[in-house]
């Protein structure tokens, strides 16, 4: 079992004719993902990696029964691409694009709230169900199938922690990169609830970072609604206030909200062990299983 994606997921890649889109569509297919279509305005009728390209997402769905979209569209057009996918019949939209203006995302978030669909990202590495499918840019070779769920705001930190897990023989059900922007689709609680409902996920690793209060709210959710054990990691303990640490969302406010310590305290208060290092995280998971 897994959450959100599996070997049956039929993927349309928005922006498949671009450098990133064509490269990663190929990588996704090499991993075994069922990429059935591309969607790029004005490029209908072409083929990329043997995949037919359509002018619109609607047409791609009509012709190929795609049920998920991955967005590799430049920042200036990414919100429009997300609206197009949310207004189409696909159930899942994964936005990889980094650098989408925050005000654009407020509009997308509003539209998302009016649907029953799932948006992952933007500014995320995507998601992967090891051995079945990946939607995004995660390097497939570090993952292994198993019973640990993972949800993270960061890309490369996810890879680090996954490699620590995999080295100890701790494989993963699904890993979800929810992205490092201030406004994102799927948040920690959404992902945690999916893992809670997945019978094969025996433990969950949650990688947070400074900025916002999502981790604190997730801690509350874990304490009151979850039976599956969770191990935490929080990046940014040494980040100074008022400075954006790479991710648009990774900023401790001048007033002191969004600190790593507040998140660590909240998680520990919810009974979640928080690793000091990525290696520690894998150790905690091993202890739980």
């Amino acid at each position, binding site marked *: 079992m897994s959450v959100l994606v599996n070997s049956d997921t039929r993927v349309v890649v928005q922006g498949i004719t671009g450098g990133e889109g064509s490269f990663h569509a190929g990588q996704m297919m090499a991993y075994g993902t069922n990429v059935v279509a591309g969607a790029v305005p004005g490029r209908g009728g072409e083929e990329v990696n043997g995949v037919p390209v359509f002018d619109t997402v609607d047409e791609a769905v009509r012709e190929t029964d795609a049920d998920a979209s991955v967005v590799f569209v430049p920042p*200036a057009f990414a919100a429009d691409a997300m609206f197009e996918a949310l207004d189409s019949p696909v159930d899942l939209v994964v936005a990889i694009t*980094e650098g989408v*203006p925050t*005000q654009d995302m407020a*509009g997308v*978030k509003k539209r998302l709230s009016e649907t029953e669909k799932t948006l992952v990202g933007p500014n995320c590495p995507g998601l992967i169900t090891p051995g079945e499918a990946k939607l995004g840019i995660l390097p497939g070779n570090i993952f292994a199938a198993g019973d640990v769920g993972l949800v993270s705001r960061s890309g490369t930190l996810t890879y680090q922690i996954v490699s620590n897990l995999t080295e100890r023989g701790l494989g993963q059900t699904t890993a979800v990169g929810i992205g490092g922007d201030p406004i994102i689709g799927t948040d920690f609680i959404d992902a945690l609830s999916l893992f809670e409902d997945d019978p094969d996920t025996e433990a969950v690793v949650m990688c947070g970072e400074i900025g916002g209060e999502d981790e604190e709210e997730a801690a509350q959710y874990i304490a009151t609604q979850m039976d599956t054990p969770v191990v935490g990691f929080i990046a940014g303990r040494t980040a100074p206030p008022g400075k954006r640490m790479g991710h648009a*969302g990774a900023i401790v406010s001048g007033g*002191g909200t969004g600190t790593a310590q507040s998140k660590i305290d909240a998680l520990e208060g919810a009974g979640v062990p928080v690793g000091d290092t990525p290696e520690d995280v894998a150790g905690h998971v091993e202890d739980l299983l």
Partner: protein
Amino acid sequence: MKLHEYQAKDVFADAGLPVPASRLADSVDGVVEAAGEVGYPVAVKAQVHVGGRGKAGGIKLADDADEAREVAEAILGMDLKGYTVESVLVEAAVDFVDELYVGVTMDRGAGQPVAMVSTKGGVNIEEVAAEDPGAIEQEHVDPAFGLHPYQARRAVYEAGVDRAVASDVASVLSTLYGIWDDNDASEAEINPLMVTADDEVVAADAVLNIDDDALFRHPDLAEMEESSYEDDLERLAGGYGFDYVRLDGNVGIIGNGAGLVMTTLDLVDHYGGKPANFLDIGGGAKADRVVDALDMVFSDDNVDAVVFNIFGGITRGDEVARGINEALGSFDEIPKPVIVRLAGTNAEEGMKILDTDLVTVEATLEDAVRRTVELAQEVAA
């Protein structure tokens, strides 16, 4: 990107908000001249990106030319929380009877813009929010429609603003929302919005921070970025296009991906060292980016040793190794020890390419950080 007060006030004035007459000056004579044009009494205000300027001595009043000279001498060149004051705004002082707060920001939890009004102006609003959240009236905004006029009115009346100025304050809030929206701002704030004895409202301060990710559609604002850098290293990083934050330690840090770089900083601290910087080379960096990154960190005199930590997804280990060889091969003597850890895509190829006469190689993140902290301590001693 943070605009300076004088830049924000230009934007506010263009949008029709009431701001006091003012001139920018960067010399003592310039301050006196500007004060003469603006008319006494004046407020002389340090233009640095530091909160609480007034308390820290960065804002002073002057009633005549002698006083203007005196306060200009005190403020220009002063160190304000680590930043040198290079220019001041000379502004007509406002004789006020009340101070309000109005602001617009993005409520990231709600995923919606929020407009705010408070009668507790003139103090740090984040402290008010923490101690007396009920004193700030909030209106969440549907971005498709913007702030409805009734919402601006409701916020103002609910906040308890004096009825004599309520309509003007609501109008200021609506205009401020428009500025926030039009400029892709992350924050737009007037604190204090001063109320005069004859019931005029005046924006005595101005905060306008722009979403960095939206600067591509605001070329006019992007031009102001040069003046927003706070030191030479930030300017250098801006030129290279790196996500860079300067810190006060001696362990230089380079990596790929924000979360992993933050984690590397945290591990430096965990193993007893002090990070000198955050530097993310981004995804898919080629060898030339690696050369630039090393130049960037070597340019910081406080750095005693550098840890270079890569976990390749779309970044390739062989590209990184080539960049490290190229950057370090150009020196007769390596300026600071560099400790490298490569994992992920093409890491094995990278390890074969890497010239181990130039760098120290470690297999794990933890070992690389520990070794770097040790070497930095040796160099510092």
